């Protein structure tokens, strides 16, 4: 009798486990949820970029301006930055061009957050945040490091199919979800 009960219990555990695994698998790898997760990550990427640029706004001339701590001193920059790294801010000598690029960066970050203009805004956001932190390497942390890597990886995903305020404008690269 006891033997039978064990088999019964094991059977029910097995069935339940299978059901749980099925659900987890559906959630992780099912097309709709996968796209939702990756789109959410993209939105957060835009939001944190925007937060970085907004919180540095008052100090932007000190951080990345043409005569800032690092950009105004090529020798110092080479002591802190990875050798092959590049930055748009190092190539800007006029403060007007600098201001234009800084404000444009904020717009790219907002567009990425809201999910407008697809991978185009994602790419421009990557370029602008990379430029910002490579022009001021002492301001970066491990989170920014992840952000860069995630930014490149997101370029290979359908991260514009969800979490967007204007689905028609995100259609630039939109692939229909099965």
């Amino acid at each position, binding site marked *: 009798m006891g033997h039978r009960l064990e088999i019964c219990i094991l059977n029910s555990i097995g069935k339940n486990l299978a059901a749980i695994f099925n659900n987890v698998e559906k959630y992780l790898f099912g097309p709709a949820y996968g796209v939702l997760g990756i789109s959410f990550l993209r939105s957060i990427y835009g939001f944190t970029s925007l*937060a970085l640029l907004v919180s540095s706004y008052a100090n932007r001339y000190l951080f990345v301006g043409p005569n800032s701590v690092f950009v105004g*001193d090529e020798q110092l920059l080479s002591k802190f930055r990875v050798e092959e790294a*590049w930055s748009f801010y190092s190539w800007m000598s006029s403060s007007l061009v600098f201001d234009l690029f800084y404000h444009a960066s904020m717009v790219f970050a907002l567009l990425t957050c809201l999910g407008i203009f697809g991978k185009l805004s994602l790419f421009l956001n990557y370029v602008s945040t990379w430029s910002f932190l490579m022009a001021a390497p*002492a*301001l970066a942390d*491990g989170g920014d490091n992840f952000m860069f*890597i995630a930014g490149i990886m997101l370029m290979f995903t359908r991260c514009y199919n969800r979490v967007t305020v204007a689905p028609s404008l995100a259609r630039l690269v939109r692939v229909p979800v099965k």
Partner: protein
Amino acid sequence: MSSKIKKLLIIATFLFMGIYIFSSLILTGPNNPIKVKWYSQIYNLMSPHFLQNWNLFAPDPVADDRGVLVKLQCSDGSETPYIDITTPLIDEARSTRFFGSRELRIISNGIGKRFERDELIQEISKNSKKDNAIHEIINNNRSINEDASEHLLSRYASLKLSNECSNGTIKATKLRFVIHAYPGWSDRKDWIKMGEITQWDTDWRYVS
């Protein structure tokens, strides 16, 4: 797309991902023979867009309060007293709940750079303590880091404190590092007890 091209693409993607994951494991992982032998190749592959390091918590986690003060020499020869450039930024960071300014990181990363040690050189030096060539490499590495640290902090101070000199031009800066080690674990309930305070001054550094 024909199925042959599709298969090739799938294989290429897996190869790319495999190489990427393997390289980041080698780069961020602890020291091992593969890292010693193939470091430069793997580094070149990952640099600059995929580099990462995990040195925040290991091997030398921050376990003290670190600050820096700065003394300015103006172009007319007058000198200012030591000015604390750390505390106002810490106060500012603490008073901001969300997304505070990152200005404090210039100071903390500047001081941190001074104590940064190359992991691989440390590992090699453990095994050959009496080797003079290794000692030279270690000292060289240390002086490069100290120079970078002082360069950053004095450059930042000369930009930030440009109003301190009456005629507006700063000739040289002198830094004072202050390190406050925490009292030990056994004194954790004694709120008045202070840890050991160490301080040292650098030479005058002329602003270029």
